[in-house]
């Protein structure tokens, strides 16, 4: 126990054993972190090249999670749960592919394409239909949270007229930038007997159409690597900040004079980057 305390003191506080500078922020340790960060960068690049996917690794968004989160929001509001439609998923997939193909980020395509035509093209006849879009989010809950924070998207998610939903989570290049698009299509089939639905995911609302449609499917295959990495990153920054703060505290208390960078600025720098991560993991919605 005593040796463990000694070890932590050596790591986090200025002590004779570490030359009065927390070991965790010594130059050799910092160099070690940098080498590890570089190794991770190259390892991830290598894995992605090998797997042939660029953003498959970069997001943690799954259709299943989106579906559950959307239904959770409806449940909170006392609304009927949506059922997953393979046809709506297919329409969402076509819409996402069209956005990548024609390089646009909008509900309507540059050649006058509407969201409804993708639904109709799958043979889904709808009475009501809606679409929510999101891009470059890293996590499913971030997507649904952003939609719920937007009145128009929230209205789509909580619209009682909808009975079915389908999602597409597609990676590609949009405006020269690697992008993850999330398309959520809602609808109520015109003739319940004509449509075929399947258990699956969720989405959010922005556009409405009254008329006719059909239904859909799709699957997203992301792992939990990314959320784990972001969490480790944040914890790592917090540990570094804590070590700097402790070093600063003891150095002030003991009146230590060191030839070193400013701990306050390092803390401010790392703290700002940590706050930045919160914004970076969020994408945009329309």
């Amino acid at each position: 126990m005593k040796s463990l305390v000694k070890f932590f003191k050596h790591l986090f506080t200025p002590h004779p054993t570490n030359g009065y500078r927390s070991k965790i922020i010594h130059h050799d340790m910092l160099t070690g972190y940098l080498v590890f960060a570089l190794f991770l960068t190259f390892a991830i690049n290598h894995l992605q090249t090998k797997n042939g996917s660029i953003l498959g690794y970069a997001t943690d968004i799954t259709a299943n999670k989106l579906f559950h989160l959307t239904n959770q929001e409806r449940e909170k509001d006392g609304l009927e749960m949506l059922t997953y439609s393979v046809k709506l998923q297919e329409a969402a997939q076509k819409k996402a592919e069209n956005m990548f193909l024609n390089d646009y980020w909008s509900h309507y395509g540059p050649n006058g394409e509407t969201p409804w035509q993708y639904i109709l093209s799958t043979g889904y006849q709808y009475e009501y239909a809606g679409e929510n879009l999101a891009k470059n989010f890293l996590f499913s809950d971030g997507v649904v949270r952003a939609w719920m924070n937007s009145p128009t998207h929230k209205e789509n998610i909580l619209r009682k007229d909808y009975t079915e939903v389908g999602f597409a989570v597609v990676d590609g290049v949009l405006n020269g930038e690697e992008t993850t698009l999330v398309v959520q299509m809602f609808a109520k089939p015109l003739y319940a007997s004509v449509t075929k639905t399947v258990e699956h995911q969720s989405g959010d609302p922005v556009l409405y159409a009254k008329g006719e449609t059909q239904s859909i499917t799709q699957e997203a295959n992301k792992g939990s690597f990314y959320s784990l990495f972001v969490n480790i990153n944040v914890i790592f920054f917090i540990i570094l900040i804590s070590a700097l703060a402790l070093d600063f505290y003891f150095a002030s208390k003991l009146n230590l004079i060191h030839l070193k960078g400013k701990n306050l600025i390092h803390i401010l720098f790392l703290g700002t980057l940590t706050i930045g991560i919160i914004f970076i993991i969020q994408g945009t919605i329309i």
Partner: protein
Amino acid sequence: MHIIKHSIKEFQKHLFDYLLFVTACVIFILTVSIFRGERLMEYLAVATFVLFYICWGIYHHIVDNTLRFRIVFEYILFGAIGLFLLKIIIIP
């Protein structure tokens, strides 16, 4: 409290430098907030902020007459760690 006294003394001594850095932090947060979902802009914002942090370190220690290679190296190390770890999040 030694730490508070020490911090106040430090702020008073280099008020302009610290205000400059705090302003850069606010600008960085605003930039990544405005360009949410724009990976390239987010990465440029991080890279610019890291570069500013290193330059701030060099400038501050020149003014303070304490510029040494190991100090510059320390800023470069912290900056590079931040840059590469965030790069993996933004553009893996």
